[in-house]
């Protein structure tokens, strides 16, 4: 960039208040683009000048037009080639070259020449003795910039490809709020050097664009579903529930089903629903006395129950599987609670961990998902206690309207499906299951007869998908998750509606 050019522009503007860049280019005798470049450079230093865009249309000669200016119009050339005695048309065309045809027809229509058919061959003769080449004259005026052509002429010459119109973009400059005749370099940022030297006091700083976005912070991110898991953990802890150790995905059928009074022919124990393990295929370490009591209550009943009246097989109970619910862990905890030193004490437990189902997969079902579970054991708990607890729990999730529907579950009686009203979807949706554990499950464990255990469970994925409007579970869990979604996800505030 020509360093002087910027200052020359500023000085010129100081005198005239308003000037077009095209005019400056002519005046300084420099290319217009250079003037524009200098302008940009001025603008980079701040609001020294106001620049409004302007467009100018100028007429110029085409190459053909240029030749007309130099040699005369095609029709004048043709006229000049016609001698006083006349000339045959073919000879005239040969002499006139490429533009002879155009020139001939124009000269004819101007009435400069005529075709004399009285002789054979017919001859072209002059019709007038003297002509004025208007086309050339007018084009000359265009060149000198003094042309006052009628619109019709302009259209005509453009059609004849003698003239062309060019659009030039330029800027009309005027003084800006920070106008100065010299350029000061604007600083972009405050630096350590400026502070040390004290120079910051003299320097001019570039204005900030507050409409632009800030720089992205370098950071890591937590997974959205696990942020929800953290929130659920927090809710349970706030409600005084202790966390169960659920870090055992492989479970025996005994703890997963039999201990829960789920009969051995129950469909959930089908290979269609449950992942069975073939290595290590079986479990062998069971609390023997308890196992016998479980066997008895299934096959013969007891504790006030008829039982299921079937041939209970140890081999079925030994089969290892991937736990289908965390209730298997709840069963272990309740067994411990019944048999701990000092005997039973009331307890509140929760867990949030993975469970596995060998189900048909679709947009909302995966073979593994997180189960959220709450369990309370105490003397004389009621169904009302369960309902009251569920209201408190769901209130913390931002859900205040609940309804309970009778349901069937092999290990809870009464059993209730939990429905909540979703204001966004404007409908009731099922959000979980709950119930009072059956005496046939609790009493063989050795829990006192007056102890009731209430429990509920829901999936972690479903409320998360509803909360964030995710339709396909694979967009939330697994390797296909879009990391951009992970990066842009908000913090989890379930009660913040």
């Amino acid at each position: 960039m020509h360093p002087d050019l910027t200052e020359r522009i500023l000085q010129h503007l100081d005198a005239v208040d308003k000037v077009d860049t095209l005019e400056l280019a002519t005046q300084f005798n420099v290319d217009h683009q250079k003037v524009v470049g200098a302008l940009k450079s001025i603008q980079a230093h701040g609001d020294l000048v106001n620049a409004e865009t302007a467009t100018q249309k100028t007429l110029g000669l085409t190459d053909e037009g240029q030749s007309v200016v130099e040699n005369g119009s095609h029709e004048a050339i043709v006229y000049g080639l016609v001698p006083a005695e006349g000339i045959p048309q073919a000879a005239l065309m040969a002499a006139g070259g490429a533009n002879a045809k155009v020139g001939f027809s124009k000269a004819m229509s101007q009435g400069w020449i005529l075709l004399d058919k009285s002789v054979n061959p017919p001859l072209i003769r002059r019709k007038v003795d003297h002509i004025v080449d208007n086309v050339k004259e007018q084009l000359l005026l265009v060149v000198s910039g003094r042309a006052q052509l009628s619109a019709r002429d302009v259209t005509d010459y453009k059609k004849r490809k003698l003239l062309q119109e060019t659009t030039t973009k330029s800027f009309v400059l005027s003084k800006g709020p920070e106008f100065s005749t010299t350029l000061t370099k604007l600083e972009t940022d405050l630096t350590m050097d400026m502070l040390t030297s004290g120079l910051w006091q003299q320097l001019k700083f570039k204005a900030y664009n507050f409409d632009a976005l800030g720089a992205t912070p370098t950071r890591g991110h937590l997974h959205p579903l696990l942020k929800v898991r953290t929130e659920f953990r927090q809710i349970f802890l706030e409600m005084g529930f202790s966390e169960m150790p659920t870090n055992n995905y492989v479970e025996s059928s005994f703890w997963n089903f039999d201990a829960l009074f789920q009969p051995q022919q129950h469909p959930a124990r089908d290979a269609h629903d449950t992942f069975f393990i073939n290595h290590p295929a079986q479990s062998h370490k069971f609390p023997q006395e308890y196992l016998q009591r479980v066997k008895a209550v299934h096959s013969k009943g007891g504790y006030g129950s008829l039982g299921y009246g079937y041939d209970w097989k140890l081999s079925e109970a030994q089969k290892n599987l991937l736990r289908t619910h965390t209730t298997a862990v709840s069963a272990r905890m309740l067994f411990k609670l019944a048999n701990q030193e000092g005997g039973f004490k009331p307890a509140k437990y929760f867990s949030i961990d993975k469970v596995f189902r060998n189900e048909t997969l679709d947009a909302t079902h995966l073979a593994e998902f997180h189960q959220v579970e709450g369990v309370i054991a105490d003397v004389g708990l009621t169904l009302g206690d369960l309902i009251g607890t569920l209201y408190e729990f769901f209130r913390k999730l931002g859900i205040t309207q609940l309804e309970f529907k009778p349901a069937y579950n092999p290990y809870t009686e009464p059993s209730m499906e939990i429905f909540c009203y979703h204001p966004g979807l404007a409908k009731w949706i099922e959000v979980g299951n709950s119930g009072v554990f059956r005496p046939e499950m609790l009493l063989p464990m050795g829990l006192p007869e007056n102890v009731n255990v209430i429990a509920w469970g829901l999936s972690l994925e479903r409320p998360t998908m509803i909360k964030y409007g995710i339709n396909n579970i694979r967009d939330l869990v697994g390797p296909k998750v879009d990391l951009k979604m992970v990066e842009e996800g908000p913090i989890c505030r379930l009660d913040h509606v």
Partner: protein
Amino acid sequence: MPTIGVKRDLLFEALGKKYTDDEFQDLCFAFGLELDEVTTEKQMLTKEQGDVAAAADASEEIIYRIDIPANRYDLLCLEGLVTGLRVFQGKVKPPKFDFVEPAQRQVLKIAPSTAQIRPFAVAAVLRNVTFTQDSYNSFIDLQDKLHQNICRKRTLVAIGTHDLDTIQGPFSYEALAPDQIKFVPLNQTRELNGIELMDFYATHAQLKQYLPIIRDSPVYPVIYDANRVVLSLPPIINGDHSKISLKTKNVFIECTATDLTKAKVVLDTIVCLFSEHCAQKFTVEPCDVVQTDGTSISYPELAVREERVSVKRANAYIGINEPANKLADMLTRMYLEAEVDAKDGDTLKVKIPPTRHDVIHACDIYEDIAIAFGYNNIKKSLPAFMQIAKQFPLNKLTEQLREQVAQAGFTEALTFTLCSRDDIGLKLNKDIEAMPAVHIGNPKTLEFQVVRTTLLPGLLKTLVANRKMPLPLKLFEISDVVLAAANSEVGARNERRLCAVNCNKSAGFEVVHGLLDRVMQLLSVPWKTGNANQGYYLQAAEDPTYFPGRCAHVMFNNAVIGKIGVLHPSVLQAFELTTPCSAVEFTIEPFV
């Protein structure tokens, strides 16, 4: 949960009232049912089979599809559903079922040979039945629903129903070699023997699923009449000879089973629900079933059991306070006729009818009281005791570390616990057989063959799926792997691991190493120098997953807790990654 389809207009006619869909849905909800779908036969055909041609002729009568709880077999057909709802609404009393003794009972004799394959049988007769097309369809549908649910796809119980007037008792239940059994199966014209029958039905859409129950047995169960006419070959198919039709008046019902309790329940359920269509409503003709020891047992049992429940306990269980007579009324509405014991005002005498085999304990009665009272009318309360809550220490540490690793610039992934053998074996240049992996016996797809033994494959798959993201990509996961461990209770144990990968234009070992250093710093574990006993350090190692010379054991207090290194190019290729990666994976359990 079974779903039944009933014609809406028939249902409303039987209920004696027309409902809007919403009104009926509310009634279902209160009773514990769910109106799943309002449809027509035409819509079902179009939707389920895409069979527009067949659908064109189908009926446009409105059908309600209703979800029935898995233990309420008595609601699996229109007849039972209507009775259940009308009793619930207090419009009728629960019906009483009576036996009508015939001049001579039908006899079914069980041969000892059946012990090898399907040892139990029960039977009953319904007299003077009037079938309409709708009740006939309902009768067939009920058997199908029972077969699918309580009968466990006919493995536990198989039902055969026959036109008694086409056959001649006494009947004989035997087990014979397949080639000795010859009969014309239902709706066929050609006689087949047991072996031919297996071939014939091998491709049958509905029946093929039942063939394996007996196919490989040396003997097949079969029921003959006095003239050696085959009634049925349970659990596959009945004979054509005795098939019931709209004209059938007298129905012989037999159930063969591997579970006697279930057979009795199924028989009770069928006769209770369909004795409604007998000339003498709710009556059943008993049959004698001669056991292999020569004794004779009368079926169906139709036993009405009496349970005595405490009013106080029932109220306390639910958290309500209703007088005894109100509770008795509620139970009666739930099909359990109850009355207050005249001698003891706190005791209810509850009659459990043969339709309610699901009631096996007082808690089932409490539930019915709660349903009749209305779950949503129960007063909310909270357990009174307080507890100081404890976090599971491993989870607490996990939560703290997740937060810190994310703060160190890594993004958390959540990957699948189940994967293919190749994911943890071949693709990592490892031999699956040499690994302590837990193998799944019944995977439906390759994705569910094993439980992961390392978190690495999940992270690499996440990287591949996010190739469009700008580099570097730094991912982590803190989650469980599962390792076979003979000394543990179930033969396997979980291990909580931290795994992180750095994926960039160069492998950047120092990035994951830096993360390890940071995590150790957070755990107050020093870098072990010289002869110090405590601390962590890296010990050069060779592992085929990693680039030669660029792999080390992560050592903590002189024990290996994990690995760190630059991934081997063949591993990258196996996961279709084109950018170098370095990774670290170690257990966090020693730090709890």
